[in-house]
């Protein structure tokens, strides 16, 4: 063996000439490695593949002309972008390559931004400077940021766009859930603009809970909120029987009675289900509250709590007091003060109390509570942070109860704990944490939420958008959200409007719900007499809508106060009501308007003007529009509806002044004569 080695040495390095030759050869080979590596690099293969692919296409010349060989780079120092993705993704800007089956050559889908302006990694993450597939796309030991899976891509829109966008439903939904499901009660989310994300839910006050419900119900609720109602957002804390027993004991013991939580009705609680159902329908309770029907479907809105089993929850006296005036128990509630008469309260409470579920409390048997149990219950209520969401007498709202999430979208993977079977990426960590928060270890407090896979993805998307880049964005790139208005009307009428909870459904000056029409310019829009009648007896304006304005049994004084306020305050400065009369238009002009309406503009597709012939029911019925709207409003509406009510479905027809005037003349002549005469008879 040794001899063989010696002879080899002799052959290679035996004399100086041989040694020089061999060493030169070794040097040459090692020098050749670098260019060879470059020559055999992945990106070069892709570029060759691209050229081969386009060779036989009819547009080969154009594509060939656009093609640039070598490593391509987009450098945007302001954004910290050094992206070489276009070295392999050669055809991103070639519209004709949109159907190419092989990546990386396909055209980028149409988006509102330019590649040169933002690069690739701003949206897709990944390592822009890398020139191999693995390093660019995947999480390796040296690189933190893998490519963002396509399902979370909208989170990148959210880095700059702080408000909702029409093209990013998932991001919008996620942000809504963060505030609607109450995540931000416990988790602080400081937005890049410096404001703090606010919760939009309204968890009930628990300081007077004993007036409202029983300890047994609280126990069953704490054990499994979804057993009471499938749609509730209260999460499941996975409490043991004893913990639920002690917490319910504490909440009852801690509750103080509220004056007025019991009322004596002049009428006895009625159990007439037909009258009850019809009052429930007439009052449009279902606009906000849902009830599960026999087929298991939810019928009704999601503004207020679900009422499927409400009879198993509330005490009759409390319900009656609540129906009489909900604001006495909860001054901030979104429920209107309906001004029901005593017999109405009796009928409606009887109807609601019959909505029971005998299984709910069948197995709940609680002995009288002991002081130790109450004390233990109080400790648990503090430990679980109940007061983060609910107002509870004697328990302070905890500060920073859960980790802050303001930059969760940039959390380094090295700081995360993964469960077996998980992908070791931040998105998978966030999604799993939302899906099964307690699976990450013993003693964790985050409760179990009931969320669909879509909701989990939406929340993950919204959280990924809260990252370092969104917080360090050049100000020129940030697109601010529309500021949330806290508009409140003043004076007596203002008080009346909050008593009637107008803002639960209507929006005025940027504040309020979106269920019902925006009333910001209502004073310019309607005629006073019509508004008075509408308050007294709200009729049907849009026949296809199931959610309508309820009747509030207002007194004449209240109606006048509201009407006066609306007619004087909610005026559009661009509309002069007196500029156009409500009658006296030339017959010829009226006729022309009618022709335009049925011919050129074909309004009957969506509106009913003549009940005998027209069927369209997307827009409001126009049979009595002449006694409802002001002429000046109709005219301006014809000219540009979106200017008066942004987002309305009425198309802007760019009407000439002449056409708009003729249509106004015709519409203002529609005073609902026929309908009124029928009513008189």
């Amino acid at each position, binding site marked *: 063996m040794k001899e063989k080695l010696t002879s080899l040495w002799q052959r290679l390095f035996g004399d100086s000439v041989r040694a020089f030759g061999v060493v030169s050869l070794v040097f040459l080979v090692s020098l050749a490695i670098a260019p060879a590596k470059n020559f055999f690099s992945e990106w070069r293969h892709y570029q060759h593949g691209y050229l081969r692919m386009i060779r036989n296409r009819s547009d080969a010349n154009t594509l060939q002309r656009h093609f640039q060989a070598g490593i391509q780079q987009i450098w945007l120092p302001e954004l910290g972008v050094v992206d070489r993705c276009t070295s392999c993704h050669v055809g991103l800007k070639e519209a004709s390559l949109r159907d190419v089956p092989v990546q990386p050559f396909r055209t980028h889908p149409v988006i509102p931004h330019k590649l040169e302006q933002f690069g690739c990694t701003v949206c897709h993450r990944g390592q822009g400077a890398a020139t191999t597939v693995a390093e660019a796309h995947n999480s390796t030991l040296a690189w933190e940021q893998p490519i963002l899976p396509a399902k979370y*891509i909208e989170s990148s829109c959210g880095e700059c766009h702080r408000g909702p966008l029409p093209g990013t439903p998932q991001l919008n939904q996620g942000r809504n859930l963060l505030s609607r499901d109450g995540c931000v009660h416990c988790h602080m989310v400081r937005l890049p603009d410096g404001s703090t994300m606010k919760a939009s839910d309204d968890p009930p006050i628990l300081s007077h809970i004993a007036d409202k419900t029983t300890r047994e119900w609280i126990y069953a609720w704490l054990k499994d909120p979804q057993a009471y109602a499938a749609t509730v957002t209260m999460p499941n804390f996975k409490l043991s029987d004893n913990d639920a027993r002690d917490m319910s004991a504490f909440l009852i013991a801690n509750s103080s009675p509220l004056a007025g939580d019991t009322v004596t009705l002049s009428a006895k609680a009625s159990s007439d289900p037909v009258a009850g159902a019809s009052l429930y329908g007439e009052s449009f309770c279902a606009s906000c509250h849902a009830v599960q029907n026999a087929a298991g479907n939810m019928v009704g809105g999601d503004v207020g709590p679900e009422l499927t089993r409400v009879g198993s929850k509330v005490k009759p006296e409390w319900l009656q007091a609540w129906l009489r005036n909900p604001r006495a128990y909860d001054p901030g509630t979104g429920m209107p003060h309906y001004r029901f008469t005593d017999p109405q309260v009796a009928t409606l409470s009887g109807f609601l109390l019959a909505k029971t579920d005998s299984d709910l409390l069948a197995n709940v048997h609680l002995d009288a509570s002991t002081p130790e149990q109450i004390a233990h219950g109080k400790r648990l209520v503090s430990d679980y942070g109940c007061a983060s969401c609910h107002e509870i007498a004697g328990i302070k709202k905890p500060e920073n109860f859960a980790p802050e999430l303001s930059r969760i979208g940039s959390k380094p993977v090295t700081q995360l704990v993964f469960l077996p079977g998980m992908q070791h990426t931040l998105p998978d960590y966030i999604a799993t944490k939302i899906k099964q928060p307690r699976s990450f270890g013993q003693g964790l407090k985050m409760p179990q939420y009931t969320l669909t896979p879509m909701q989990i993805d939406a929340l993950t998307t919204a959280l990924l958008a809260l990252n370092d880049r969104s917080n360090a964005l050049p100000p020129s790139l940030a697109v601010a959200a529309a500021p949330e208005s806290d508009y409140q009307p003043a004076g007596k009428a203002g008080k009346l409007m909050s008593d009637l909870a107008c803002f639960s459904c209507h929006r005025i000056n940027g504040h309020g719900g979106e269920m019902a029409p925006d009333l910001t310019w209502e004073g310019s829009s309607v005629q006073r007499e019509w508004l008075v009648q509408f308050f007294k007896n709200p009729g049907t304006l849009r026949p296809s809508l199931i959610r309508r304005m309820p009747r509030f049994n207002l007194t004449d004084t209240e109606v006048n106060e509201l009407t006066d306020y609306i007619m004087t305050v909610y005026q559009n400065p661009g509309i002069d009501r007196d500029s156009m009369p409500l009658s006296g238009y030339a017959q010829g002009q009226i006729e022309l308007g009618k022709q335009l309406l049925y011919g050129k503009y074909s309004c009957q597709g969506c509106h009913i003007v003549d009940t005998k012939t027209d069927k369209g029911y997307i827009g409001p019925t126009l049979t009595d529009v002449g006694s409802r709207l002001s002429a000046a409003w109709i005219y301006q509406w014809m000219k540009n509806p979106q200017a008066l009510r942004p987002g309305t479905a009425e*198309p*802007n027809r760019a009407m000439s002044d002449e056409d708009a005037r003729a249509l106004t003349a015709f519409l203002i002549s529609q005073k609902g004569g026929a309908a009124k005469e029928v009513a008189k008879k």
Partner: protein
Amino acid sequence: MTRYFPNPVGTAALGRPSARSSAAALAGAMLAIFLATSCSRTNQSAPLPKPTAFGAAIVESNGGKQFAQTGAWLPQPVVVQVNDEQGTAVAGAWVEFAAAPGVTFDPPKGLTDTSGQLTANVSLGGMAGRYQFTASTLDKSQKKVQLKIEEIALGYQQTLGRHLNDLYCERCHSPESTVERVSNFDNLEVKPHPFTEGDTLNKISDADLTAIISHGGPALNKSPLMPAWGNTLSRADIQALIAYIRAISDPPSRSAGPTYAEN
């Protein structure tokens, strides 16, 4: 550590003839990872149950032809049913889903329930287009019986178009009513074309669709009941709407984009 491959649809389709071995290695690695990830999820809790019955046919009972954003879960789960020769539902039969990489099923396989059905949530891949996948079961002779299901993934532009469709178009153009949204379709003397009606809409060019949307039906001698939207919608809005219409048409439009099927 499981290495993470982000865009399987893209990377799986790589064509690298001059480096075939490494492409094969890459494909192999990806296959291994897919197997590893898909098995680790289902295998960990309990071993897969054995089928107790065999069917003769597999049919779709719900969830085909849905639209969702790229990468997102379909709004409704996909429900397939296994039937025997007489067409009666078979409980306890084996069902397995297969699709192009990037499509995930939850669960990816399982046994049919007492009504002979298996329900799975499906999320589509990262590229806009049509996704074809198969649900298969075994018959008595252990032969595979397959069912093809197609779903549509919408990209950014199509999603924007869909949003505009919901706001402005759907009430007339879709004959379907829901409790919340009553269709106006039946009230119109001249019936609008539902946007899925590929037989008609595929024959209308993008330029003509743009003209009808911008200037109303009369622009192409059609009904004035279709109003002009050119002053309400921007050019980009109208392009987005057309992209949406092209994406969902049935039969598919020529410009609907690629179809992704199991390799």
